[in-house]
């Protein structure tokens, strides 16, 4: 009896500690910021323009992503071809691709001296510009069209094959098939996909930092950064931060009406049976979708290779900083996720509620607001710059927590539901249980979660921009500084190194989770 009570108590204490940390980082920093937002009135016309731009660019980005994803997902669901599973896997790539690297790839294609403009110039046509509102939306579509495609593809593949067979046997094709099966499925999956992408675009910072700015393309997050960094107007930064959070909370609240979709991993997806003549349009959509994803990815590699030699030495020290920040961030994220997962391990309902709650919290909080709040907390006691890396790795760990929890919590709960009675009946001690049963059983999802957390942290360019002083930089920050100095060749080389190490970290953790098998 005694040992059992102690055990339950330990799990509660650890879990509650993690929750307390999360609440301090989200609500505590928010309160800190709110206290400093003197008057709430100091917003000028430009700031309201930022609020409007944030909302409409997110609406447009999410709309375009979801609408374009429908025909691409439909074509992918119906057509089988060599390389299909590879393409489906690559649809997941933008998720761990460092945003700043993706932007650099887009600049290589759509930028001032990019491939598209070179072609337009040859044809004597006016050039396009990637900087400004169009560029922000283009980049958001680049990152989220693949996500939308995966989500809608899941919808198509979740329709039982028997339904397609039945429809075919009834002679339903074309419009009838659409009305019978496809439209009802889309009505279920589109709102969730739209909402998720809308939320992701609302809080996007790096894209706006790199290709946005100015009166017409400044998001709230970027305005927070500018108010803080350039004007050191903390009251204004705080007010903007509160507006950002208010919008996100309102939209995230919609998630209780429209459940957010779950992204499933894996690439070995089936094909929807089809008996009608394949439409050439299908191939066109697959080709267009693949090109939009693959050409910028290819551009990163092609333009990065020549720049690899002769990179400034500061890049290598930034790389080293980024790697250890990413590894520590992954460890912290895994520890927090395990603590929370153990707390609710015995209740399937608890697992679901916790994962959903943290997920919504993660989508609604803004790293820049957390950063501002932490800056204000540290400021009276010490030089916030000294804590740049600690803050970065902590915030990164928190931002990855929803994903880690989503893969870890079900695995931990499964171990408890499968073997907890056996453990109790043979009186296995806690240490043995943790080391020989729980850890081996959750090793795979743990490795995957840590890989994800490490890659996301490695590529993050967010809160570090608030705290950075010239002496401390992570690789994404170094890359951004190279871009700011128009040293595009060096930037391209650094981008290739950054994406290479992000993937390497992900692969190493994921591989470690799979064991020697």
């Amino acid at each position: 009896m005694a040992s059992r009570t102690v055990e339950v108590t330990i799990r509660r204490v650890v879990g509650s500690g993690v929750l307390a940390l999360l609440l301090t980082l989200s609500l505590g920093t928010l309160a800190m910021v709110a206290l400093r937002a003197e008057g709430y009135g100091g917003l000028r016309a430009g700031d309201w323009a930022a609020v409007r731009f944030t909302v409409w660019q997110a609406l447009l980005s999410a709309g375009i992503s979801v609408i374009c994803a429908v025909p691409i997902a439909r074509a992918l669901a119906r057509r089988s071809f060599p390389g299909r599973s590879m393409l489906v896997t690559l649809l997941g790539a933008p998720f761990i691709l460092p945003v700043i690297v993706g932007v650099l790839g887009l600049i290589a294609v759509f930028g001032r001296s990019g491939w598209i403009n070179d072609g337009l110039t040859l044809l004597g046509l006016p050039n396009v510009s990637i900087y400004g509102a169009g560029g922000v939306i283009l980049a958001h579509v680049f990152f989220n069209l693949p996500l939308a495609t995966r989500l809608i593809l899941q919808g198509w593949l979740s329709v039982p094959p028997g339904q397609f067979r039945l429809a075919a046997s009834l002679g339903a094709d074309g419009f009838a098939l659409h009305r019978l099966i496809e439209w009802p499925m889309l009505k279920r999956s589109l709102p969730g996909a739209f909402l998720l992408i809308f939320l992701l675009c609302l809080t996007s910072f790096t894209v706006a930092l790199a290709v946005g700015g100015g009166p017409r393309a400044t998001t709230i997050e970027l305005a927070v950064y500018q108010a803080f960094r350039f004007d050191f107007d903390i009251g204004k930064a705080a007010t903007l931060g509160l507006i950002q959070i208010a919008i996100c909370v309102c939209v995230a609240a919609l998630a209780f009406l429209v459940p957010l979709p779950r992204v499933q991993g894996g690439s070995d997806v089936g094909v929807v049976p089809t008996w009608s003549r394949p439409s050439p349009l299908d191939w066109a959509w697959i080709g267009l979708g693949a090109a939009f994803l693959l050409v910028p990815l290819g551009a990163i590699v092609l333009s990065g290779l020549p720049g690899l030699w002769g990179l400034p030495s500061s890049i290598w020290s930034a790389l080293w900083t980024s790697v250890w920040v990413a590894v520590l961030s992954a460890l912290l994220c895994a520890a927090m996720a395990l603590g929370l997962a153990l707390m609710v391990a015995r209740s399937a309902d608890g697992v679901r509620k916790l994962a959903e709650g943290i997920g919504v919290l993660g989508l609604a909080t803004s790293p820049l607001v957390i950063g501002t709040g932490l800056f204000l907390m540290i400021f009276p006691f010490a030089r916030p710059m000294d804590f740049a890396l600690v803050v970065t790795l902590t915030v990164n760990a928190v931002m990855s927590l929803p994903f880690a929890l989503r893969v870890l919590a079900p695995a931990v709960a499964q171990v408890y539901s499968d073997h907890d009675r056996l453990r109790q009946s043979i009186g296995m001690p806690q240490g043995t249980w943790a080391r020989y049963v729980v850890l081996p059983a959750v090793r795979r999802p743990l490795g995957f979660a840590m890989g994800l957390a490490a890659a996301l942290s490695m590529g993050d360019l967010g809160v570090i921009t608030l705290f950075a002083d010239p002496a401390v930089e992570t690789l994404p920050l170094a890359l951004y500084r190279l871009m700011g100095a128009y040293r595009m060749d060096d930037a391209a080389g650094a981008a290739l190194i950054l994406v290479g190490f992000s993937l390497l970290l992900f692969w190493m953790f994921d591989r470690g989770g799979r064991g020697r098998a």
Partner: protein
Amino acid sequence: MGGGAVLRFDQVVLAQGDFRLSADFEIPAGGWTAIVGPSGGGKSTLLSGIAGFVRPIRGQIEWCGQPMTADPGQRPVSMLFQHNNLFPHLTVEQNVSLGLAPNLNPNTAQKEAVKEAIRSVGLSDHATALPSNLSGGQQSRVAIARMLLRSKPLILLDEPFAALGPALRKDMLDLVKQVQVKNNATVLMVSHNLEDWQTSCDTACFVADNVAHPLRPTHQLLAEPPQALRDYLGR
């Protein structure tokens, strides 16, 4: 009964969610008792109560005149579940050794005993195998070997052999019989198989409609079945 009783349900009411099961009877030492009755009637709840996974909200379960301890691991009980009797990533040897050393750190004498137990269930060639590489019958043998080492006086079988064919199931029951005789244990067995009751169990406990009834000799219960049992048997 009375004098030789080892397990006593003293006006016990067990609660599992909204479900209630009451029991007020005794089980004598050394016997082999079938727990029978319709699905959802409370058979597993009864075993869970004895093993300590479900607490009584009224009354108490006594063992040799003493109330049972709360910790399932400290009870005089070995239990085989319907599923998940083995840890899938531990070897046969490790799984069996849990019977003596729940911390997976057996001493030399314990290691010898583990080897002997594995030999006695005929799995010496599979000592380093993982459960997933064994057949269903072999997996049951591993669990029985562990039970042999635990040498607890009360053996609870919650349909552990339900997925096995008739011949294999008989083998397993024979093995449990050996363990029972060796440890002079008392066996309580949930089974839907009429033949199992008749061949293995001298007494039966009928569980239905939220009540676990006092033990009756198996042949007598089957000769004059109560209505609920008749419905269950389809007679």
